[in-house]
């Protein structure tokens, strides 16, 4: 297995390799550069997002004027490739447990986590814990409101922001939800108060 290179090494190499303005395919770049095919593809993707690189024809990459200028100025990439988050590239969740839970929430006036578990679970394990996390995210994003009084010791909730039939999906690392009901490409709703 190839040794892990320092962040930014492969993109810098790629930039220098294409600095002559040539149009090269990924296979050619793979043969010419000391890096994995996947690393080169990732670097190319990051440069395309930045506007440094373009696909001149099918499978062939060439630097844009901005990329040429960067290469001439001796630009060194010293971080991981920057990627802009593109929600529309994310696969929409299918009829999973959270979708069924969302369906149940939409048709209930007020509910406990237990009520929703009863309505939505098929044969999932740890369903309750999963929904507890989902409820926390929904509450933080302002979709759920906790009701002031408990019943039988259980917290009760009310869905106050019913945006549509598609269940908002949790983006755990970003501490946010992505809601495909708000726009076609999906809208990010922060869970940070």
């Amino acid at each position, binding site marked *: 297995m190839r040794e892990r290179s320092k962040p930014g090494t492969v993109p810098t190499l790629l930039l220098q390799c294409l600095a002559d303005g040539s149009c090269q395919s990924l296979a050619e770049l793979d043969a010419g550069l000391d890096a994995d095919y996947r690393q080169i593809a990732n670097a190319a993707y990051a440069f395309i997002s930045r506007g440094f690189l373009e696909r001149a024809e099918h499978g062939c990459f060439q630097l844009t004027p901005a990329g040429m200028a960067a290469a001439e100025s001796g630009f060194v990439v010293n971080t991981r490739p920057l990627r802009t988050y593109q929600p529309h590239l994310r696969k929409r969740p299918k009829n999973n447990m959270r979708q069924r839970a969302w*369906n149940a929430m939409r048709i209930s006036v007020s509910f406990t986590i*237990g009520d929703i578990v009863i*309505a939505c*679970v098929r044969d999932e394990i740890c*369903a309750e814990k999963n929904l507890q996390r989902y409820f926390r995210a929904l509450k933080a994003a302002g979709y759920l409101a906790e009701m002031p009084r408990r019943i039988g010791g259980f917290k009760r909730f009310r869905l106050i922001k019913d945006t*549509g039939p598609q269940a908002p999906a949790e983006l755990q690392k970003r501490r946010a939800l992505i809601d495909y*009901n708000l726009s076609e490409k999906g809208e990010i709703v922060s869970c940070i108060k």
Partner: protein
Amino acid sequence: MKNVFVETSNVKRFLSALSALEDRGATEACLVVVDGLPGLGKTTTLKHWVAQNNCIYLRAKKEWSPAWFMNELLDTLRVNPPHSFQKKYAKVLEELAVRQNNALMARRPFGLVIDEADHVSSKATILETIRDISDMIELPTVFVGMGKIKDNLSRFPQVASRVSQKVRFEKASKDDIKLLIKGRCEVPVADDLANFVLTASQGFNREVLEAIANIERFGMRSEIGSEGVTMADMAGHVIINNRHTNQDIYVPEGV
């Protein structure tokens, strides 16, 4: 209490009625009437079915008019309601047909559920609107009510004749009670106490769940034998609140 959906005999009859609906003879007869006294688990069953299959659920209102019903249906379908009734009707049909097709492709059941349908069962205009929608796209429509729907619908033969399945939710049997206790109670319960729960609850699921919560509360903090919580263990403790008299029902002592 365990959060498990228990398939009682009522649930089984409801599901088999829906299966029978798929094999109906007359294509336009796609109405299902579900009725029974309050507290027998109708809404829980329907909510489970709707959530599992992503169906459309509406709760009827006392003062529903056809336009209000249409607006609410369009709102549930996440469509901005157009101004005229004709356009609303066309939009509803279009949206429901798309959803029904998608469900068909995914091989899952689809339908429109109208809860608390007693409110609309005597209103000809709404019933006719629902019948039209149901007829046009052969959409299974489930009316859920508390015992008056069947009688009320008999006043409208054109609607009543399209009811292909009628499911009456009955009071829980001894087996149902045992199934419910086994499925939802965190502590084992002896047969004698289960029988007492059946008598005290009169077969109403709502009361049975209340009894399970009380048994659980008692069982969790006491030493119980291998056969589970018995009547002797719980003697003198409240098990259920009587829904008619609002008095507590105690487990009798000296049994």
